[in-house]
């Protein structure tokens, strides 16, 4: 019981998710800055941002629904966190049963969906354009993402467990692309394109609500990277987990640095016409049993 609670609340659950989520985001910003040949903020900057935002006030505009604005980021934070409970990080997981892979997939959709709903609730035109883009993005990313998840899922009876997908390079590739999309990092930062639609769904957010959004985003970084490390790179112990996740993080940073933003249609086209079919090749190989 105690050890299960520890898993849920300390590692890989709540506390470590918050700490490592923000730390990863800090590293993301710092290394990106160095690639830009800037100094960049300190790695603990996301913590400082969070604390500062928590101490500020919420502003609810005339056209917005305060309730939804409060709960949407909390739900998306919670769903990103729930995913962690199924992940066997470093060899142990809190919850695990046959077919929990699907719960993971749905929970990740939830996180994005409530990000969009939170945007719609503000009634801001920029936010609604951003939210529509977010919905389209979920729609676009889910195809390659689900296919790649099912590919590895078939190999381990749809329960989340460590698996090294070296014989499925296409599934691995489409998973990595969709991670970039799910974290809305370049080239998929379409819903938060500041040059086009201000901050997208987050335009009207301020104070603790914005802090919750930041938190959800941080935890999402940690969740997605952990998932990649366990499900696709097969981390069975803590050391492997650390190495894998840092490698993934670096890959994310490199990709985000060298690509510009796609247009929403280009993103849809890329994910559906190129990345998705590639993932299908590996799915077909699993179904037909053509692999080593």
């Amino acid at each position: 019981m105690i050890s299960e609670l520890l898993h849920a609340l300390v590692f890989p659950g709540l506390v470590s998710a918050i700490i490592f989520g923000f730390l990863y985001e800090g590293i993301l910003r710092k290394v990106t800055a160095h690639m830009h040949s800037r100094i960049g903020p300190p790695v603990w900057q996301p913590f400082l941002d969070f604390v500062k935002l928590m101490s500020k006030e919420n502003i609810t505009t005339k056209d917005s629904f305060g309730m939804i604005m409060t709960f949407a980021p909390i739900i998306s934070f919670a769903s990103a966190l729930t995913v962690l409970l199924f992940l066997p990080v470093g060899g142990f997981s809190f919850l695990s049963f046959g077919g929990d892979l699907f719960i993971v997939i749905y929970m990740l959709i939830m996180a994005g969906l409530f990000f969009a709903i939170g945007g719609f609730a503000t009634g801001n035109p920029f936010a609604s354009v951003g939210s529509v883009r977010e919905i389209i993005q979920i729609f676009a990313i889910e195809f390659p993402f689900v296919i790649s998840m099912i590919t590895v899922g078939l190999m381990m009876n749809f329960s989340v467990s460590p698996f090294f997908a070296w014989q499925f390079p296409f599934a691995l590739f489409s998973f990595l692309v969709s991670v970039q999309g799910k974290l809305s990092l370049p080239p998929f930062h379409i819903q938060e394109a500041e040059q086009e639609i201000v901050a997208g769904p987050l335009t009207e957010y301020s104070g603790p609500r914005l802090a919750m959004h930041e938190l959800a985003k941080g935890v999402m970084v940690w969740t997605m990277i952990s998932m990649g490390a366990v499900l696709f790179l097969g981390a069975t112990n803590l050391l492997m987990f650390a190495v894998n996740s840092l490698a993934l993080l670096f890959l994310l940073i490199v990709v985000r640095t060298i690509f510009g933003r796609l247009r929403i249609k280009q993103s849809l086209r890329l994910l559906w016409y190129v990345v998705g079919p590639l993932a299908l090749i590996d799915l077909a190989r699993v179904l037909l049993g053509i692999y080593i």
Partner: protein
Amino acid sequence: MKLLGEALKRAISRPVTRKFPKEKPILPEGFRGRVEHNKETCTFCMLCAMNCPAAAIAINREKKEWKVDIGKCIYCGKCQDVCPTNPKSVKLGKKYENTDYDRENLKTNG
């Protein structure tokens, strides 16, 4: 993909930006900074005050008072150009952090 090589190279080399208040920039020779006035050599001929495009310089010949309003100064260096004394009594120095919370503090004797 054309940026990949450079991005990786930059990641391990020293950033070009500097932490400003700790690390000051190197100013070139002839930088146009805050106006400096030398009371010993000045003849109070009024040329700088007359030629100042921003009318930032005020001179009182009787009291031998020379005043410049840094808040108005546009750092063009015209006063230095027209100053007839040798060495120049009015010239632009290298001070560039010329802000204050009070406008009155910007009115100085140079």
